[in-house]
């Protein structure tokens, strides 16, 4: 009798029966490290997909677990509509002082946000994007590009010079 009573109460039952689909694509992975040189900055797009015949939107939480010393991203939740995909930019920057040969590890955890509904053991899906960043010598022929700010400053100087010349000539006349 005790067992019957207990068993009827201590039950872990299924109340929900949805199918969870999700995917993350990355241009770098364990066997395909990212190679960067000191002073370089790049953005790696992590592609979050809600396809595979998905009929419902998915909310995914994205978190940078490892590699925060060189990488950053907007942690938080992203909504991906059914049948669509989005890119989450992961910014990676190697300081100029970094020694060649240094290796960093980056790990980004992406999980579907699945409410832990009552009455069951709800299952969600997760993808860990992991890859190494290897610091290499700066390849020959690579030149430092001007920053946007530098272009703006140059443009302002040119405009000022032209304006000065204009007024100078006008005053002479």
């Amino acid at each position, binding site marked *: 009798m005790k*067992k019957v*009573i*207990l*068993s*009827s*109460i*201590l*039950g*872990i*039952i*299924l*109340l*929900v*029966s*949805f*199918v*969870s*689909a*999700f*995917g*993350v*694509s*990355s*241009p770098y*992975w364990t*066997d*395909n490290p990212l190679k960067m040189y000191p002073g370089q900055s790049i953005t790696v797009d992590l*592609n979050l*997909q809600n*396809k*595979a*015949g998905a009929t419902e939107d998915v909310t995914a939480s994205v978190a940078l677990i490892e590699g925060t010393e060189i990488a950053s991203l907007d942690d938080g939740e992203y909504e991906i509509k059914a049948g669509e*995909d989005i890119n989450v930019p992961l910014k990676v920057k190697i300081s100029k002082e970094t020694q060649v040969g240094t290796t960093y590890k980056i790990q980004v955890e992406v*999980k579907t946000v*699945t*409410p*832990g*509904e*009552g*009455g*069951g*053991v*709800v*299952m*969600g*899906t*997760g*993808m*860990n*994007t992991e890859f190494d960043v290897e610091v290499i010598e700066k390849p020959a022929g690579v030149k430092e590009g001007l920053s946007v700010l530098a272009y703006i400053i140059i443009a302002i100087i040119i405009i000022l010079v032209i304006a000065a010349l204009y007024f100078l000539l006008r005053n002479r006349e």
Partner: protein
Amino acid sequence: MIKKEAVIIISLLLIIPLVSAGFFDFIKNPITGKATSQPTNISVGVVGTNPVQITQVGPIAAVNPTELSTTTIAFEIHMYDPDGVADINDTSVNATFTKSGETSKTTGNSGTCTFVADLDSYTANYSCSIDMWYFDGSGSWTISAQGKDVGNSTWIVNNSATFTYNELKAMVISPGALTFPSVSPGGINQTSNNDPTLINNTGNYNGTIDVTAIDLYGESDSSYWIYAENFTSGLTEGTAICLSGTSLVNATATEITSSISNRGNLSSGSGAGQEEIYYCIPKVPEIVSQTYSTEGGGSWTIAY
């Protein structure tokens, strides 16, 4: 007299260069009004003696696979022929993607690329596309472009270009929640009654599978909970996993021993691209009777 001979000699000199026939041919081949037959040396300009050259393939930026589907990769091939574009065999241009250990991919249904336009008098542009499947291996693929011309007909192959097919970690799991039969405190080897969790690999990742379990809190009284460590998980059905399965750990990704995402074509029906995970409670803890679920602590996660 001398004057007369000089006239005859000069006349002969004038005639000889103009007449190519033998001097007495008119005896052997009398003039009949019919045109005489004779060997004739002719010079014909043959187009296409030089083979074509494949001057450009791609480039193709790194490509993301698409979950459970194909991704069409479009690219261009430039063919150069020193004999002119007219000598390029437009229907011969095709391309193949190859990678060690992978099934090769060939352009389009007809196996060829499509002529787009002449870039100049010697170079023509062709548009090609190849479909890559979600389960095709990640890494560097070689693009083998080939084509020939009309006159030379020698197949020219260019294997110099490559592209990167990115890694895609993706899955579809079902069912979306576990169920256990009603169990008694102290009960042993209680297996789930709706397992396994079927994991369909809808990407191209090949590796182990983790399960992150979360303690199950009482729905009526959340001050009681069942530790995640009370659960084991494994790849075989039945109570064997209760003893030999992997013990789960609260809020920690735990690799399921011997699990593999098993990259492959799910449509083949051979189990490729699939893995199954079973669950057990080896010993139900002595705990207050109520319903315990993921409502309070959050869902479990199956991950690569």
